């Protein structure tokens, strides 16, 4: 019966791991969306090895331990195979090592099934514990770390490393069970029995604290308390240990740097996302990216989580198999806990009972500690996830512990030892299940409730991956000429900025420097999040884990005029805005000096620190003093005179919308308020909008730059203006004011102004078509950060004439 159950479960496990291996093999094809790729094949070695060893272990367990629990081995085989494939998928080198360790561990299990009894553990308890402690003590002197830096917890010989604190856990459990089983029935006072265990365990824990292996030290403390409680059934011990743990925790928080850092980054992870809480936030983002169904094995990006193969393997699994996968994983660990406790309760003697319960507590407690750490349920401790995480010592220890459980459960024919109090065992089970349940809830919280928020964080590097695989929408000018497009092909896409001088306006999208300008504000369309039908969005996310192809956006920019402007602005600092005075469409927006976003990777830091601030879009973000002269036409339009006192100027600024921030798909400097009259500053865009009154009969249109988006279902859809038009003046007043600034023999008006602040000079030029102009009404603003009236006038006039005669 047991044999059939175990073999059925192992068959399902084999199917599960086969499918996983197959999906990992095919994953490059899904990413590249073609069959013509290099498939990942090496992980089949891992599956083959797994199959070989598991088949042999199954054969031996069913023959040598026929009555052993039939659920324990398949559960362990499933999660260790799962871990092995996940590690291999993350890093084939570590995967190969783990496969080797899996072979070693299962060989030990296979050999161990020949052991008739585990009584030798009881007999040689002192020797075993001393050896284990000695090995850990050796790491104080000879300890190394395979990865170079970090705590030196390993003993190494050439390429082979052992972490002695892993087997020591098992040895301590065995020692305590043997010792307590020997001494407890002697009816001495409990405290006399406990002295030696307190001293021994204290030494072990102290050793680990000195070594800074705090996660393991806390596991030891907890295991010690749990085992004593199980054996004696005294609740007082539990409370005292809890109190001591809390005390040690507070002391550690106050005096030990690493504990403080861990707890601080646990309580406030969002304060320092790139420093001390980098790991936990990357872990949470990975879990959020997994969502409910996961990205599929080989299809997520768990490589972004630091130490994903060991400490954060749970997060890696969560990303690729989603909440579905991790709930299954937690349930399987729950099965191991249940069956372990059952083996404990049915054990034939006290030694075996405490041993089995101790091992179960070790599996459960360590799982909760690291899974909770991954989910920000508990502070992070660098312990392994039993059976799953990378690490030879941990895997070997887990398999030996499994062997002991199998051996203990193989005593159905003997009546269980009498059990005076079942509560401690039930309480232990309850506690472990509560931990698993809390982990499941926290997992749901991060992957479902908080998931969408987490994924939009700027430190989610998965967006960068997605940009490489999904083509970003194009930015086009008003005649559909390309401004920005993409280089490369699927898998190597990168943004190409064809019209470089527009960079301060269109901005950039870069894995390192993030996004700016229109690339940032139109990101949802360009990435395909907005504008695509919900169905295709969901389907694409389900299939590929990415959004569908990005949508093209058409701008109001006229590349011909823009080019003319930029030619004339070379060498100057300033901004030019040319807009359609009626519709508000921005035909030219130029900010100089500019930068080449194609060189962002090499020169980004230089751009950022350049005193000329090339990254700033001066046309919308620059705030320049108006001075008195440039405001003359506005004052005249409002009052009929060309001068006004300061208090009246407030009315002027108000009337022409200077106190309103322009609403447009670009970052704009917030407009000043009426209280700031002494230092009135406006952006060139604000000035251009206000100037439209003279060419558009007193009406200020809402500005527009992003005109339309090309959706797959409905073709080009126009994007509405974000702001509202303003009725600034009555048409006659506006037209009359314009007429007094008309240029002789020309059909346009103009005005030049000069402003001074501190030791900087600024030149303003405003101009526009006359109110009688029959074709498109236009307005231009030129601002130069220098005192050069002639240059400003030349640029303004030439452009205006060009624009009026297309």
């Amino acid at each position: 019966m047991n044999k059939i159950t175990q073999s059925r479960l192992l068959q399902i496990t084999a199917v599960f791991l086969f499918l996983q291996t197959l999906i990992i093999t095919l994953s490059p094809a899904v990413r590249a969306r073609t069959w013509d790729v290099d498939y990942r094949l090496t992980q089949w070695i891992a599956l083959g090895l797994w199959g070989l060893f598991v088949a042999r272990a199954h054969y031996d367990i069913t023959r040598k331990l026929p009555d052993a629990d039939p659920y324990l081995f398949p559960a362990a085989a499933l999660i260790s195979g799962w871990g092995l494939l996940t590690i291999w998928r993350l890093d084939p080198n570590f995967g190969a090592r783990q496969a080797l360790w899996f072979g070693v561990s299962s060989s030990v299990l296979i050999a161990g099934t020949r052991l008739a009894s585990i009584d030798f553990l009881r007999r040689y308890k002192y020797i075993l514990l001393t050896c284990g402690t000695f090995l850990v003590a050796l790491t104080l002197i000879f300890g190394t770390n395979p990865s170079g830096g970090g705590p030196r917890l390993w003993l190494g010989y050439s390429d082979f490393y052992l972490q002695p604190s892993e087997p020591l856990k098992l040895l301590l459990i065995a020692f305590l069970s043997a010792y307590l089983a020997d001494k407890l029935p002697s009816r001495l006072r409990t405290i006399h029995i406990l002295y030696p265990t307190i001293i021994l365990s204290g030494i072990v824990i102290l050793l680990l604290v000195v070594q800074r292996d705090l996660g393991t030290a806390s596991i030891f403390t907890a295991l010690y308390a749990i085992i004593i409680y199980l054996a004696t059934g005294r609740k007082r011990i539990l409370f005292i240990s809890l109190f001591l743990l809390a005390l040690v925790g507070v002391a550690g928080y106050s005096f030990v740097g690493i504990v403080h850092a861990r707890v601080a980054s646990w309580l406030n992870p969002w304060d320092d996302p790139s420093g001390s809480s980098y790991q936990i936030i990357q872990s949470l983002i990975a879990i959020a990216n997994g969502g409910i169904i996961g990205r599929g094995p080989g299809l997520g990006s768990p490589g972004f989580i630091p130490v994903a193969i060991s400490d954060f393997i749970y997060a890696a699994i969560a990303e690729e198999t989603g909440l579905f996968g991790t709930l299954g994983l937690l349930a399987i660990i729950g099965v191991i806990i249940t069956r372990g406790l059952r083996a404990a309760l049915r054990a034939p003697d006290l030694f075996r009972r405490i041993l089995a319960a101790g091992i179960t507590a070790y599996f459960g407690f360590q799982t909760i500690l690291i899974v909770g750490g991954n989910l920000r349920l508990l502070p992070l401790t660098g312990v392994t996830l039993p059976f799953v995480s990378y690490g030879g010592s941990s895997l070997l220890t887990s398999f030996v512990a499994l062997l002991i459980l199998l051996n203990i459960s193989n005593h159905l024919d003997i009546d269980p030892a009498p059990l005076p109090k079942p509560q401690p065992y039930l309480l232990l089970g309850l506690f472990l299940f509560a931990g698993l349940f809390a982990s499941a809830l926290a997992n749901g919280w991060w992957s479902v409730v908080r998931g969408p928020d987490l994924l939009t964080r700027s430190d989610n590097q998965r967006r960068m991956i997605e940009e490489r695989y999904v083509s970003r929408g194009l930015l086009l000018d008003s005649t559909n000429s390309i401004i920005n497009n993409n280089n490369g092909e699927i898998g190597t896409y990168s943004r190409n900025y064809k019209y470089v001088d527009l960079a301060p306006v269109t901005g950039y999208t870069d894995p390192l420097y993030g996004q700016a300008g229109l690339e940032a504000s139109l990101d949802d369309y360009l990435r395909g999040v907005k504008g695509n039908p919900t169905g295709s969005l969901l389907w694409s996310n389900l299939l590929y884990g990415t959004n569908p192809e990005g949508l093209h956006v058409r701008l109001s920019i006229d590349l011909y005029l823009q080019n003319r402007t930029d030619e004339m602005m070379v060498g100057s600092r300033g901004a030019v805005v040319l807009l359609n005075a009626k519709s508000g469409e921005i035909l030219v927006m130029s900010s100089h000096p500019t930068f080449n976003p194609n060189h962002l990777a090499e020169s980004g830091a230089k751009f950022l620190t350049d005193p000329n601030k090339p990254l700033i879009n001066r046309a919308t973000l620059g705030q320049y003093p108006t001075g008195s002269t440039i405001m003359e036409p506005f004052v005249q339009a409002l009052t009929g005179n060309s001068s006004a006192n300061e208090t009246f100027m407030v009315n002027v600024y108000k009337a022409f919308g200077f106190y309103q921030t322009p609403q447009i798909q670009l970052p704009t400097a917030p407009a000043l308020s009426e209280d700031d009259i002494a230092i009135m500053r406006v952006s060139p865009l604000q000035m251009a909008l206000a100037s439209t009154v003279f060419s558009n009969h007193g009406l200020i249109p809402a500005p527009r730059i992003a005109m339309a988006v090309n959706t797959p279902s409905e073709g080009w859809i126009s994007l509405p203006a974000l702001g509202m038009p303003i009725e600034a003046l009555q048409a006659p007043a506006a037209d009359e004011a314009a007429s007094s600034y008309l240029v002789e023999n020309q059909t346009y008006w103009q005005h030049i102004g000069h402003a001074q602040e501190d030791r900087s000079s600024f030149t303003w030029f405003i101009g526009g078509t006359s109110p009688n102009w029959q074709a498109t009404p236009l307005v231009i603003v030129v601002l130069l950060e220098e005192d050069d009236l002639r240059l400003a006038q030349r640029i303004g006039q030439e452009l205006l004439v060009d624009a009026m005669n297309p």
Partner: protein
Amino acid sequence: MTALLVLILRVALAIALYAFLWRIFLTLWQDLKQQGEFLSSQKKPGIHIHAVMENGKDIQHRFIQSEVTIGRDPNCDFPVMDEAISAHHVRISYHHTQWWLEDLNSTNGTFIGKSQVTVPTVLITSDQFRCGGTSFTILVDLVDAKLLN
């Protein structure tokens, strides 16, 4: 196409994972059910006791409880008004799937045939024993077929 195939495989993967858990659940449930059926089928067979006293008077009773005491005391499950029987003479009890006969330190002893009962002795149907001047015949109900399995 690639993605569709892999999506199907991913669904199969999730099904395999939960099939594993379902299988565990199913076997555990069957285990539980079997245990329940076993325990409920383990109804102890009733016992029929037929006593014939020296004066030829006979009494018979059928019991379904698992313990029957016989003695002169009227509080006994099977009181027998025989001077040679002690107040609590003998106990017949069901455990370890058998009916057992146990002498309760009676004055005159209990006998099966010629031999005195000193240790608990298994009774099977149509066994006879004697206390004082009364002889008892036991009829055990037929055991449920399920138990025999």
